């Protein structure tokens, strides 16, 4: 409906709506003056438009219902968003609580033994590499070593004999565990491969079965027996460590009988 082209249907509609572009105003007016049919049609459509507006006007004059007030709606939206937020927060909270429960349950049911394991592995790493002072008390003083460790750990100990596996005792040392003393016994095979037995009181532990743990290339089999935790650690393969652990377990059980 721009420019000065011939009058078309768009011009008729624009005339009805009073939206004829300024440059065409004269053209359209002239056309309607010359064409009574078109003028009558524009007039009829204007009346129709007015009738429609009039008929619908009552709806626009009604007061806005409370539920369509912006203040009300933004409150609703805020409430809904808070609801969504709270639901999400609740999910997160449950995840956290669940994680916490899981964590503490883990600590409670397994934590002690896991501690024994990590202590054992850490101690193994620290002392196994020692060439000059791998042990505090050498195997030559085995009687003294066993007596000393037994006294400190509060339980009669006996150094397991692992000769059947090719390992000989080279000595032991007293260590500080989280809550009290721990003992480490070190063995070595003819290739100077070392394994350690770590033991300490573990009064709150549960279960007596063998378990396997591994960290940084050091493997450990650990178990509990009569409120004591034992761990046999080394870089030997798992099968070999298991054989060693079984022997230690059997000898400890026999000694405590």
């Amino acid at each position: 409906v721009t420019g000065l082209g011939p009058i078309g249907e768009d011009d008729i509609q624009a005339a009805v709506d009073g939206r004829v572009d300024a440059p065409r105003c004269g053209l359209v007016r002239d056309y309607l003056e010359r064409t009574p049919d078109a003028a009558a049609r524009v007039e009829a459509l204007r009346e129709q438009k007015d009738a429609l507006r009039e008929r619908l006007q009552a709806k626009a004059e009604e007061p806005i219902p409370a539920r369509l007030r912006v203040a009300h709606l933004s409150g609703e939206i805020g409430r809904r968003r808070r609801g969504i937020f709270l639901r999400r927060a609740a999910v997160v909270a449950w995840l956290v609580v669940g994680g916490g429960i899981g964590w503490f349950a883990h600590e409670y049911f397994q934590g002690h033994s896991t501690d024994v394991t990590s202590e054992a592995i850490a101690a193994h790493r620290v002392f196994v590499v020692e060439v000059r002072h791998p042990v505090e008390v050498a195997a030559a003083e085995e009687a003294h070593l066993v007596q000393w460790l037994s006294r400190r750990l509060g339980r009669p100990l006996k150094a397991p004999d692992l000769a059947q596996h090719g390992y000989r005792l080279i000595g032991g040392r007293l260590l500080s565990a989280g809550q009290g003393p721990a003992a480490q016994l070190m063995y070595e095979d003819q290739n100077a491969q070392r394994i350690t037995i770590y033991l300490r009181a573990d009064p709150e532990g549960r279960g007596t079965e063998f378990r396997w743990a591994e960290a940084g290339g050091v493997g450990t089999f650990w178990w509990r027996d009569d409120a004591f935790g034992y761990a046999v650690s080394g870089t030997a393969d798992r099968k070999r460590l298991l054989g060693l652990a079984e022997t230690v377990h059997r000898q400890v059980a026999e000694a405590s009988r």
Partner: protein
Amino acid sequence: VHDLAALIEPHVPALRRYAWALLRDDAAADDLVQDCLERAISRWHLRRRDGNLRAWLFAILHNRFISDRRRQQRRGHHTAIDELAVEPASPSDAESGAVQRDVLAALALLPDEQRAVVLLVGVEDLSYEAAARVLGVPIGTVMSRLSRGREKLRRYLDGDRPAMLRRVK
């Protein structure tokens, strides 16, 4: 909230009128407006600052109307022509003449897209450009729908009722 209310609320009467003209059901129309306003408020930050707020609101309303319609159609719900042609009893218009009654009855007989243009341009005073934006169609489409819609209404109001009904059916 006060700014928002001051900007939006002046348009609410027109939105209600448009919604009612489309649906001709008080509760359904206000539901539609409420839906529209909730969207407008929650998407307030997305509107173009320099844009036409009135057209933006009408566009939201219209889009809600279309998607509700489609949902109804998917559910298999359809409204019979006769049902649409029934005048909603509005006690306040007892003084209204037969012509006005007929305008609304005729309006109900138009296809949705023609009715929307006739209302947006003729009643809500949107420019052709704004109506095109609201409906998401080219301005030429707005003009042709306007022409056809108004012509149908005119023939109906001129007493061409049987022909009209035949054509619609």
